[in-house]
């Protein structure tokens, strides 16, 4: 009986002596990292969602500088027809600004279809900025058509603007989800740390009576919680990567590229790598801070 225990002594000594509070068991490496991994997965999804929505917003906004356009035939450039149309549009209360698109920009927009030097003569395009998005673009388009005889009214920009508004609120929702996940993670860590304190109450009280400072005791919990939460967050983030690559692939057509033909061709480069790399670090910091605050608050009851 005595022999095996004596053989085991040096290892026991090394592994336990530096962990007088027995935190390796009191804050176990199972439940907390697993919960945190699940939350890190959610956080990574929310993060990628927020970034994807931001990209869509930026892209759509660039493509829809004007909510509505009015096209006039090239002949309208002479004889004062263009000026009359502009005046009529400016007079409408719904129109904040009516501007003729300059030739260079129109050529740039049409280059993919017409090449460098278009042979056809281009129509005149009047871009309209609206005072506010109309409830019914068709009705407004009808009224504008009536105000500008011979003009062709295009209102798809209204729909784009609506999509942009939707993407913006998606972005806000994703960020709110991120904050919520961080809050829940902090609460979970606090509960785990309180359970750890309860399990080691007498050891904590003894260390305190032997002259351990609050910083020392809180530091032991902080280190352990930081390690566990950091590890969990790393696992969750790694799990999120393939999921995010898949989503990025689905979203590719919306951003003007093609779905990937193979795994290697998934849009890996488009993942928010910097933010993803920050998640485990932020997780570890959150675990450390939460444990410190929880333990220090508890220790204040000791003399």
């Amino acid at each position, binding site marked *: 009986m005595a022999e095996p*225990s*004596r053989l*085991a*002594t*040096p290892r*026991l*000594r090394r592994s*336990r*002596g*530096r962990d*007088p509070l*027995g935190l390796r*068991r009191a804050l176990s490496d199972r439940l907390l990292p697993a919960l945190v991994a699940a939350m890190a997965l959610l956080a990574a999804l929310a993060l990628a969602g927020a970034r994807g929505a931001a990209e869509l917003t930026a892209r759509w906004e660039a493509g829809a500088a004007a909510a509505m356009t009015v096209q006039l035939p090239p002949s309208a450039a002479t004889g004062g027809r263009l000026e009359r149309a502009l005046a009529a549009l400016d007079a409408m209360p719904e129109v904040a600004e009516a501007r003729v698109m300059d030739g260079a920009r129109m050529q740039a927009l049409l280059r993919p279809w017409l090449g460098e030097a278009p042979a056809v003569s281009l129509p005149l395009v009047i871009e309209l900025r609206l005072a506010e998005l109309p409830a019914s673009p068709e009705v407004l388009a009808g009224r504008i058509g009536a105000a500008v005889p011979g003009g062709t009214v295009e209102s798809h920009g209204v729909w784009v603007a609506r999509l942009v508004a939707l993407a913006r609120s998606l972005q806000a929702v994703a960020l709110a989800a991120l904050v919520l996940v961080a809050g829940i993670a902090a609460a979970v860590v606090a509960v785990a740390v309180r359970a750890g304190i309860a399990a080691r109450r*007498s*050891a904590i009280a*003894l*260390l305190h*009576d*032997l*002259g*351990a*400072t609050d910083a*020392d005791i809180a530091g032991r919990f902080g280190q352990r919680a930081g390690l566990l939460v950091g590890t969990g967050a790393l696992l969750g983030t790694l799990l999120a990567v393939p999921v995010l690559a898949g989503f990025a692939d689905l979203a590719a057509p919306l951003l003007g590229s093609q779905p990937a033909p193979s795994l290697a061709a998934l849009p890996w480069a488009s993942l928010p790598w910097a933010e993803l790399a920050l998640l485990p670090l932020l997780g570890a910091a959150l675990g450390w801070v939460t444990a410190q605050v929880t333990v220090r608050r508890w220790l204040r009851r000791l*003399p």
Partner: protein
Amino acid sequence: MVRFDDVGLRYAGPSGLGPQGPAPEVLRDVSFTLPQGSFHWLLGPSGAGKSSLLGLMHLALRPSRGEVEVLGQRLSQLRRGALPALRRRIGVVYQDFRLLPHLTVFDNVALPMRVAGRGEAQLRADVAEMLRWTGLAEKAGALPATLSGGEQQRVALARAVVMRPALLVADEPTGNLDGVQARRVLALLREMHRLGTTVVVATHAEALVAEHPAPALRMDEGRLVAHG
């Protein structure tokens, strides 16, 4: 040096109240001075307040009124943050040992040194010496649950003195021991006293006190009834 000046103590619940109104004072008007390097018995019937008095002495409790001065420091003038450093200069043998069950004998004895931030190389020699001194060298790798009561008591003593404290406080250090073991523990306490430590020992064991005449503080119902 330890000085108590008109000290009162009540154990207050979270609300500051006991079950029936304000908690009663378990220590009342306690005043005495123990010179540096002295040895004192602390005597009195069960419930007299001996453990409470020792708790004040080793800064596990704060007085409800009066002044406690330990090792030249007045408790009323110390910030909470200054207490850990003072506690490290006081060794305590607890009535219920308070050994950590998941640590070996070696690690239990090393605990105060690790708390004080001593390096592993340095504490190894000191702990080994304490274990030899208390006759526990063979048990360094054992867990407390596998030790006899007398052995556990000596582990508690080794842990209390490993930091060479200026004040050593022992609460019933011979409580569960037979005569031979009790004398052995007491011999270690007297040796600490010879080495210059101020020692206070609370006990019920009148026979042991008769064998080792020394000044005594005698308590009854929370009051100091005799001193000297």
